[in-house]
């Protein structure tokens, strides 16, 4: 059974490796600083005993005050999963580092988040809209779209 690796375990591992990356640890998710996201993910993917080699999904939520970007990874070897979160406080051109270089599966999913939520992924090789046409006004999944 896929057991979510408890946030406590992850936090203890991560804070040993990256002293100031972890901002907050929820019950089953870890909130990290967006700047340290690629390093943390790379570590989760490659470190012994973790090996989170499969990315389940990437999504973003608009909470008005901030955008939350959510990543879920699974280790197919140990059958465990982890949820990472990061936040951007600005509504005007929010930016998060891209994970497309680490997981190929992130490529289109980041484009989808950009298309519908308007979050730019820095370092993405092809940051274009994926469903809507170029020139579409705004990003429809934002709560204030078309209001």
């Amino acid at each position: 059974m896929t057991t979510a690796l408890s946030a406590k375990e992850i936090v203890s591992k991560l804070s040993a490796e990256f002293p100031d990356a972890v901002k907050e640890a929820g019950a089953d998710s870890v909130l990290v600083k967006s700047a340290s996201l690629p390093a943390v993910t790379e570590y989760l993917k490659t470190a012994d005993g973790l090996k989170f080699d499969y990315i389940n999904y990437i999504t973003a939520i608009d909470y008005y005050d901030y955008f939350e970007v959510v990543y879920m990874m699974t280790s197919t070897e140990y059958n465990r999963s982890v949820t990472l979160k990061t936040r951007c406080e600005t509504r005007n051109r929010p930016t998060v580092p891209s994970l497309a270089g680490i997981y190929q599966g992130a490529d289109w999913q980041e484009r989808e988040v950009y298309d519908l939520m308007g979050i730019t992924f820095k370092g993405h090789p092809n940051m274009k809209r994926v469903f809507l046409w170029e020139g579409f006004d705004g990003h429809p999944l934002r709560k204030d779209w078309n209001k």
Partner: protein
Amino acid sequence: MTTTQEISLQTEPFVLNMGPLHPSTHGVYRMRVTLDGEVVLDIEPMFGYLHRGIEKLMEERTYTGCIPLTDRLDYASAMGNNLAYCVAVEKLAKIRVPERGEYIRVITAEMIRIANHCLAVGSMLNDAGALGTPFFYLWNEREKLYDLFEMLCGQRVLHNYIRIGGVSQDLPDEFLPALEKFVPQLHKFINEFEFFLKQNEILIARAQGVGVLPKDVALNCGISGPLARASGIKRDLRKDDPYSVYDRFEFDIPTAENGDCYDRYRVRMEEMKQSLHIIDQAIKKVPGGPFRAKVPQIIRPPAGEAYGHIEGPKGELGFYLVSDNSIAPYRCHIRSTSFINLTALRQMVKGWKIADLIVIFGSIDITMGEVDR
């Protein structure tokens, strides 16, 4: 005299627009194919022609009112979508489904898996040049399954049957006997079908060794379902993260090693047999009792978030729900299998001919309703 080398012509790549209305694109998918003669150099997938904004629409409907929208994601396996969504809502609202409801869900989920694989295998063979014949034999069996669905819920394609906390109505009296009669019949058909195709020269020539997807690429792209299992990734959420009552059934996870189109065909055929095996066990064990938990029509799950996923016919299908304790989801993200499985297409087709591109694309098994949402 000039040699052939001196007069060789300068060539340049040719760009071909395939789709959105091409018979082999399974809906409205378009790709810009860069060709060197017949050989595919690169492809650029383009989609969104069927984008209906389902995630946005869900934010304005009650939790129950969202179920019909999920039917319209992957319209070839609507029952699976209903189930994945309901599993996520139940996780969010902490609702327990009665035993009978769970067994009915397992039976219908496996029936839709068979129906989906009939379509997937049939259309792949169609794309490979076996026009019509195998497709319509499989279509025939799928039709019988759809008759059973009609008996169950009055709907053939878009079922809207699974509800939060169970299913919408109990099994009609004649359903289980009809299914029991149908299972051995379908088993016999699959064996016959395999007998004709396993060593079929056309299928082997068109599919064996074509469009190989290596295991590490598949994993890195987030590929799931039969596509991943054909590449040797032994992962199936029914075993690895059991939902419903799948932990009470005995079944194997068919895998293959080569990751080519032929292996994908084989894995799907084996999966159909395993599904029949599960249905067989479930029919014998369906308990009595309520088929649905006592859940109000309008529910208000506590504020929080949940991710529920199932092993759909195409792979991992998940719903990520955020609740703000109101009657509608604050945000619903759909982890769509087809969309993510399509990521690997570019790597699979490079260097193959354009006729192989069609077969490789067909072997992925996608539905545009799920890609575009």
